[in-house]
């Protein structure tokens, strides 16, 4: 899944099906069959929660050398990713936690990554999703 020069995107949710569906939605809306996006949802045994190992595996899978944007839902997903980043030696170089809503942020990140934009631009696009008011 890793694509040279593309920013990777990882969708981290407490739920495996949510992470997979959000990654699939982002890929579909970006108009791509192969985008550097991977899900890391739930625990290894299929339960609800966050698995640090699945997050690390997903980040490595989408790492094309241009950085990886991590989109997360809440609670343990946020804390697990922050704990991994604080260690500094498990996630690919240039991995960043992006402060964005999960679904809208993932779509914006994947669409932006697909244009060949760098990690700053991908992160900024995802973060801007907080600004789109719906009412």
């Amino acid at each position: 899944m890793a694509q040279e020069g593309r920013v990777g995107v990882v969708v981290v949710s407490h739920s495996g099906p949510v992470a997979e569906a959000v990654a699939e939605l982002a890929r579909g809306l970006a108009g791509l069959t192969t985008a550097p996006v991977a899900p890391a949802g739930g625990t290894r045994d299929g339960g609800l929660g966050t698995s640090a190992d699945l997050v690390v595996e997903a980040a490595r899978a989408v790492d094309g050398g241009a950085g990886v944007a991590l989109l997360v839902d809440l609670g343990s997903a946020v804390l697990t990713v922050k704990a991994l980043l604080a260690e500094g030696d498990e996630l690919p170089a240039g991995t960043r936690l992006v402060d964005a809503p999960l679904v809208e942020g993932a779509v914006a990140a994947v669409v932006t990554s697909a244009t060949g934009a760098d990690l700053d631009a991908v992160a900024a696009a995802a973060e801007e999703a907080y600004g789109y008011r719906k009412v």
Partner: protein
Amino acid sequence: MDAAFFLRWLAAAAAAVDREADRLTELDAAIGDADHGSNLRRGFAAVATALDAGPPGTPGAVLALAGRQLISTVGGASGPLYGTLLRRTGKELGDAQRVSVAELGAALRAGVAAVAQLGGSAPGDKTMLDALVPGADALGASDAAGDPFDAVRAAAEEGARATEALRARKGRASYLGERSVGHLDPGASSSALLFATLAEVAR
């Protein structure tokens, strides 16, 4: 205290978590998502297995390996929080073969500070910090009088008990607002348990 002491501590902690898992989950059922005990049981069982399979030779390495196991296996927020506590404390101890009470106190306070930073929390928020901070501070403040680890146990238990009156400001319990008052915080309760087992093995 050498590596064997820390191996005994974590084995005792794993046994205590296993024994108390149902009580911790009951506490979490009141103001959380009812998985604290079962999550910690899974995490500490993995810690015990990993330490049995390849016991590290220094106190710091024992704690670092245990912390990494918790982050991998717990699944809930207590995984990265306790994982960070043990791993940061272990890193502070470095590769010393033996550590003094004062050195462990300083390392624990650094570990607790890392937990506070990770969770963006402070004492009074009705979290594990309400037991961890007074417990680690008690080890730092200990002098010749009395058993230093018993002071840690007592301070952490008192801190955990005091969470009953607090309103949660972090995690899932914070969604309950005022309705979180009147319940013990499960995280502070498991932290008190962790320090109680430290006192147990130091005795």
